[in-house]
């Protein structure tokens, strides 16, 4: 008797797992991050420099690093920073790496290279980041490091006998970057080291007036130069076109 119940249970469960009656059995689908995206980040985005303005719109005075939690080693390096030396050593892009590029004045151009690969270009320093949803992309030891990307969705409530944790509404794009070439968190030389980890959350909001806003919240951990996690968040307003897009080389000034 019990055996019949269990058989029935399995039949019902299998039927639901296969989808509604009459549906063609689905084939395993290749991952498609673009289709699964809670929002589309593609387009031209202009940075609005409304916080830490003095340190972002220009290279502030040496040692003026705002609230970046540098440890003693980090402060020493920042206070010894020499733009001419950076230029001479070919490190003119030190402030345009993954740790500093989002705080630069300028624009981003985000495109889908394919369904699982996002490209972020910045006109400041003419930098390019490749964010792959399937396998880490990038090159260890370059300015933008190696990034892994996922859609980070809030967990919904678990109810009844639902198996697993359902996904809540919306979501952020989470990017974790490691193995970047040591660079600067600020234009005036607040340093990060090779073991720094950058965790970014991208969110998209519709604001009054019909504009779209891309907000990126970033956590930086770096045992070499930071005394604790460094959090900052930046925002970009969507543009209808490429107006103002002005690729320009890095500068150490």
């Amino acid at each position, binding site marked *: 008797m019990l055996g019949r119940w269990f058989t029935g249970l399995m039949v019902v469960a299998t039927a639901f797992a296969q989808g509604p009656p009459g549906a063609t059995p689905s084939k395993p689908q290749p991952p498609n991050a673009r289709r699964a995206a809670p929002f589309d980040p593609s387009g031209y985005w202009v940075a609005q*420099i409304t916080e830490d303005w003095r340190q972002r719109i220009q290279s502030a005075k040496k040692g003026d690093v705002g609230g*970046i939690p540098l440890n003693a080693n980090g402060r020493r390096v920042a206070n010894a920073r020499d733009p001419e030396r950076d230029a001479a050593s070919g490190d003119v892009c030190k402030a345009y790496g993954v740790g500093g590029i989002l705080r630069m*004045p300028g624009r981003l151009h985000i495109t889908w290279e394919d369904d699982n690969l996002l490209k972020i270009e910045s006109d400041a320093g003419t930098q390019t980041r490749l964010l792959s949803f399937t396998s880490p992309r990038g090159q260890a030891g370059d300015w933008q490091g190696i990034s892994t990307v996922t859609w980070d969705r809030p967990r919904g409530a678990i109810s009844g006998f639902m198996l697993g944790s359902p996904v809540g*509404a919306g979501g952020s794009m989470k990017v974790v970057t490691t193995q970047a070439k040591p660079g600067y968190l600020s234009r005036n030389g607040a340093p990060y080291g090779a073991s720094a980890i950058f965790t970014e959350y991208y969110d998209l909001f519709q604001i009054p007036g019909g504009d779209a806003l891309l907000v990126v919240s970033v956590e930086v951990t770096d045992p070499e130069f930071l005394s604790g996690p460094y959090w900052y968040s930046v925002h970009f307003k969507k543009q209808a076109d490429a107006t103002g897009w002005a690729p320009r080389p890095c500068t150490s000034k």
Partner: protein
Amino acid sequence: MRKTANMHRWLTFLVGALVASLALQAQMPFPGGNGPRAATTPAIDFSGWWTANLQEDGEERGAGPELVDYGGVPINEAGRLWALSYDPSRLTSRYHQCDGYVAPYSVRAIGNTRVWEERDSKTQTLVAIHWYSQTFEGHRVIWMDGRPHPPAYAPHTWMGFSTGTFVGNALRVQTTHLKQGWLRRNGLPESDQATLTEFFVRHGDHITYTSVINDPVFLAEPMIRTTDFYRQPADPGSWLFPCDDGEQVMGRAPDQVPSYPTGRHPFLDEYSNKHGVALIGALGGADTMYAEFEPRLKSASEVEARTKAVPANVPAATSRAVDPDPHDGEIHVLPIRAGLFLLVGDGGNIVVQTGDEGALVVNAGEGKLTAKVVAAIRGLSKKPVQFIANTNSRDAYTGGNAGLKKAGVDPSVVGTFLSMQDPGAGASAAIIAHENVAARMSSNKAISPEAVPIDTFSVERRRKFHNGETIELFHTPHAVTDGDSIVHFRRADVIVAGDLMDTTRYPYIDLASGGSVKGFIDGLNAILARTVYEHSGEGGTLVVPGHGYLCDEHEVVEYRDMLAIIRDRVQALIAAGASLQQVQTARVTADYDTRYGANSGSWTTEQFLEVVYNSLKQAAPRR
């Protein structure tokens, strides 16, 4: 056998539950989509203790910003000039010592935050999210139950009125009814016309907070900022922020408001020089937010930078504020407190006091909608209008006198000795006002004798006990006219200011009827001498303006400051030998024009300046 039957029932339940669960799962919207679940289900719980991360703009948000540090703030000319006029000594005024922070500034303040949900006890649906900030005890209530925002004539508060919805993985909050406060506490203002849109997103034990401030008065573009919070594992304690004002500068005259003269900020270059920031950038503006501005930091000339610090040679701007009166031909009623109601719609604001006795009405409106005013009062009071008090003689407040009087009665005099003089005594409401109101109205042949106050007073104070309430009328000499009064309901703690307070325009002063700038400022100070705030300079005594939204002490202080500052500027020009025309073209009101200015209509900025000029010239000591 019994055991097998129980097992069958259990398995039947199990299968049913599984089927139901799978069926529900099949009906769910696409994962991550903003389907119906997003609109009805509180997907994110922000409850707990949080602390704002001050790693961005830390100096500004912690110790405080430096003067003339406006870079990256999209202020317009009015915002910049307002800030450049701001002397931090203004905080020593007892009316500013406890000023709270407006919501968007409060969220970015140093200190801890506690968040909790309020749920309906019967249905457990989410009613509100409470966001309590330690600094100034900023307690925000974000209503999640779909209630509408209050009408435009409702009071403004530091925290404003907020409603929220869940959109995707964010809590989206819309806030209106904010007080004038700080965009940055080095003088950069945020007006009472600002609205706020916010997004709260949880990333684990971290909140990313985005605020979008739209301020038509002081901003050229929305001010957008992002802030990070981290979760506190335990109650950090220390939640209170007490403040009582006191005398910090002895002997300062009550009409003295510290401000820097236009174009003469004593620390204009200090921040710029100290940090190596070009002045043109430090002075802020929408263009300073963008990459295109970077080259100008080096290329802009000294003259170009300093030109930005004074009013431009352009026509005066006009008010961008919302008129709280809907002007829709209807009378709108707003409960104030303790049996008092505000009636908006017939010119000047009307206040109705209700109770066991007849209604007492302060001001009668313009008289164009008197029938609707009477109907509205009947809806509030079981008894007819018994008394009408006029705060001055102007049409906006007395135009409805005759009609309102006719609709009322004054049973307190029926059959008394007064009937021997006037058999009709008590057959209509009695009108109370300062005797100069009666004199001015009587001398105007266009005004019906029925509209003229008969119950007049000539001393500083007229008092009355009515509907269980202590009511005082205080004469404020030579303010708008020579017959102004304010009416203080002491138990309700509501002051009806009449023309002395107006959130819609520059102070109206009728020199020909005995008004003066000095008397007007004295009148505002007379109101402030009677107000008591509840906390952080807001609440407590409420002040009903002649036109505009229901105020408290803070709005009166800002209005007083504005008039005193403009007076000082005009006075300085007069002292330098300026003509009226020179005063009118000097744009001495440039920082206030986007809030109060008008280039057309019944009370223009030009007229206002003419009155200020002439009033000060009249008051100038003769040699």
